[in-house]
């Protein structure tokens, strides 16, 4: 059986851990298989969970979050017959042949929703709310800003972070205030990449009559007609695929990008009225170009810098 280890944010973070859970559930429903999962509580449990699951014979062991890569690197050699998957993390395949690293090109998905934001914006000012100031969140913000500027080079992108303690991921009240502050600075589309805090952002955007953009999972349904789109990161698909492959999982490094729909933007009945055919066409064109390599979206993590916005 496969096992799934969620990052500290917990199984139901309405975000990428939840996406992994959904993917695993879908896999279980479709195949009738079962999987084991655990929500971590502390840093030290990472390695513990890996070892306990490996010893108990679970295979593959799928993990979410970049923080799992280091523990996997130190455990993998002890269990050569077990396959480990690190979603968002990177483990050198040369050293650890039994590990699959799945990396998402979040900047590409963010780029597309940034374009949508710029097109939907009437004021020329759009904004971003991040949970904590960490590289991953900057990566989102950077891609987003690039997309915005691609459509409207004069647009203003306001990027704010919620806080510096773990509470930053669960403070919808602060998210809400940040959104209000951004609205008063002219923003009329806000992209939230902030876990539970993001709910406050989406809520306030809906209350105040501006558009919002969800993250990781499709969050369009939360406020139908008020969420412009969601930046999708198909952790669910990646999880389900890994589980389907089972013990025969191919290891190495897998980059999930726009090509192959590893990332993308959400279009469904909830936001059908918000995205005009024109907008969709423009975004699809950009998407094709990115896939074709004609447009390169800069990845913040590659050199810790961003051409479109400063942190």
């Amino acid at each position: 059986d496969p096992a799934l280890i969620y990052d500290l944010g917990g199984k139901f973070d309405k975000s990428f851990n939840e996406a992994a859970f959904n993917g695993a559930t879908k896999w279980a429903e479709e195949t009738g298989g079962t999987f084991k999962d655990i929500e971590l509580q502390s840093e030290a449990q990472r390695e513990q969970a890996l070892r306990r699951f490996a010893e108990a014979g679970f295979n593959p062991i799928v993990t979410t979050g970049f923080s799992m890569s280091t523990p996997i690197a130190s455990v993998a050699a002890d269990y050569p017959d077990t396959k480990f998957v690190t979603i968002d993390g990177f483990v050198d395949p040369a050293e650890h042949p039994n590990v699959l690293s799945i990396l998402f090109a979040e900047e590409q998905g963010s780029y597309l929703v940034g374009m949508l934001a710029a097109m939907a914006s009437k004021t020329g000012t759009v904004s971003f709310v991040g949970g904590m100031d960490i590289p991953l969140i900057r990566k989102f913000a950077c891609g987003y800003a690039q997309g915005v500027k691609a459509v409207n080079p004069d647009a203003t992108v306001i990027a704010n972070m919620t806080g510096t303690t773990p509470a930053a991921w669960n403070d919808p009240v602060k998210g809400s205030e940040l959104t209000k502050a951004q609205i008063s600075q002219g923003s009329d589309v806000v992209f939230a990449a902030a876990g539970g805090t993001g709910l406050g952002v989406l809520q306030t955007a809906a209350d105040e009559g501006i558009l919002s953009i969800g993250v990781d999972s499709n969050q369009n349904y939360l406020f139908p007609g008020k969420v412009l789109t969601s930046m999708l990161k198909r952790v669910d698909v990646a999880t389900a695929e890994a589980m389907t492959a089972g013990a025969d999982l191919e290891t190495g490094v897998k980059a999930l990008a726009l090509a192959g729909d590893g990332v993308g933007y959400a279009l469904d009945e909830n936001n059908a009225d918000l995205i005009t055919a024109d907008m969709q066409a423009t975004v699809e064109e950009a998407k094709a170009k990115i896939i074709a390599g004609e447009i390169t979206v800069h990845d913040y993590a590659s050199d810790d810098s961003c051409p479109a916005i400063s942190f």
Partner: protein
Amino acid sequence: MDKMPAWADAVLVPLISLILAALLSALVIVAIGESPIEALKLMVEGALMRSTGWGYTLYYATNFIFTGLAVSVAFHAGLFNIGGEGQATLGGLGVALVCLYLPWPHWSLALIGASLGAAVFGALWALIPAYFQAKRGSHIVITTIMFNFIAAALLNYVLVNLLKPVGTMDPASALFPPATHLPTFQEMFSSPESPLFRGAPANISFFLALIACVVVWLLIWRTRLGYEIRALGHSESAARYAGISPVRIIIVTMLISGALSGLMAVNTTMGESERLLMNATEGAGFIGIAVALMGRNHPLGVLLAAILFGFLYQGGAELALWTNIPRELIVVIQALVILFTGALDNMVRIPLEKLFLAMRRGNT
């Protein structure tokens, strides 16, 4: 003359309180549709019946010993140091700087250096609130709360902008050089014939924590400084009468307290993760308050309470591994343990005292 024998107060009361907490926890487990007996079995087996379980229990306990001692030392001077979290955070920074930027030939030297780094950084982070309390009367509870937030912001900045290696996603420092690797219990106690503590994070800093317990005990009950700290804690006016300077004691005590909190980072940052993480303290500073209060501010009590909390953490991890019980159940159990052993202890003590008194009357 006491109302009941000391052993009853020290053993019987906490034991009965613990049982009450366990019973109530069992009710909660039943309420969410699981079996409390199974849960208890899992916890005990996972945390205490295997050496690896102990390896985790003691790893957590190490953290709580340091923060618990920190809180209790301050308490003896009448100071409520809620800032363990921030001081431990800064301690982590100290450890990281020492391990990353100084060349260490051997782990033993690195351990000394890192301990110093952790203690100094933790102490300095406690110094400012201490100074304001001593000189300006600024309430240390407020200032230490504030310093927790400030420490988090500082660490966030340092990690993301200064310490994080370029191109990595983790807001964490680079791995420390191998020479700073501290011996784990596995390396210390395992032999090929009898593998022990496999993979457990417990490491030599547990013994550092034990030493800290002894040192704190000596400090508080055997040194002049400890005598003066306790005197100030009991009565400021008497302290002044005896020529004990409140300003000096407040500052020195908080430096010691901050250093102890900071030392926790040797266990987490150097011993376990071997790099500086964003949230390495994980609330241990707050658990330290509960541990200190439950341990009645005595190092032995702190040690026992820390092990109890270590057990809850590790047992909780086992529950999370093998059942569908949400991890918050462990938080509830912790709450009940704190409540019954720490705050509702008189509920047990008063009837017991009556019982013992009646027995004594009956005998004489």
